[in-house]
């Protein structure tokens, strides 16, 4: 019987032992985010990394619609999804805005604490960073595919 069944199922914590998960949880805090509340804004100091436990969190970026600046929808994250990886990656600035779409519960880690833990315990740090790289790569490939689809449509519209 696993001590951390929810964490073990999360891609960020894949292949970490129960002891390592326990160590991670010792430095974690819980965040309750009522519906509509901003979690962070694009360009803010990225001081925390989050994993969604319950609810939905929406990612957005500023977009100009006529004379209005609006937060354009980018992605919706649910239980098990990670956000705020900029807390581990320089220049430690959030690259999108995030807010609760409905009431949400998140587990948060202080970025500096997590970076220290990764540096001092490579047996925990290496798999954690590998998992992080896999997640970032997946998002990058997703964005790349979206961009290619938009380009393909532009080409089709212009030359058929």
């Amino acid at each position, binding site marked *: 019987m696993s001590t951390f069944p929810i964490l073990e199922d999360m891609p960020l914590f894949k292949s970490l032992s129960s002891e390592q998960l326990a160590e991670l949880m010792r430095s974690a805090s819980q965040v309750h985010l009522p519906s509509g509340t901003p979690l962070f804004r694009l360009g803010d100091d990225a001081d925390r990394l989050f994993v969604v436990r319950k609810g939905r969190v929406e990612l957005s970026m500023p977009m100009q619609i006529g004379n209005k600046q609006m937060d354009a929808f980018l*992605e919706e994250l649910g239980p098990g999804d990670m956000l705020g990886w900029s807390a581990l990656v320089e220049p430690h600035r959030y690259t999108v805005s995030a807010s609760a779409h409905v009431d949400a519960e998140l587990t948060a880690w202080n970025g500096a604490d997590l970076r220290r833990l990764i540096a001092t315990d490579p047996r925990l740090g290496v798999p954690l960073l590998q998992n992080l790289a896999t997640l970032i790569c997946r998002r990058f490939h997703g964005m790349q595919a979206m961009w290619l689809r938009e380009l393909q449509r532009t080409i089709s519209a212009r030359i058929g």
Partner: protein
Amino acid sequence: MHGYISLIGGIVFFLGCGLFLFFACERREDEERARQPQPQPALPAARFFTDTKVKAPEAIELDPATVMLVMSLLERHVRQERAAVENFLEVPSVAHLRTGASSPFVN
């Protein structure tokens, strides 16, 4: 005569020793200076979305209902594209990159 030659020889000898010691000390100081970490030039402050509040100069006036409609169409379009991309990530194929979206944004 012999005394003078000995005296000059002695002076030359001590001068040589002095110069040798002087250059040896200089070299050691240079080596120590080279071993010390050199101060790095300060990096410029991160320029990261510092202008998110800038308005486009020729932006047209839109009524709030139109803005909300555009936002809702945009969200629908992005959700459809996300779904298509999830399929592409599961089974990468050229066909997944070419299937059109049914959202009004591209039709």
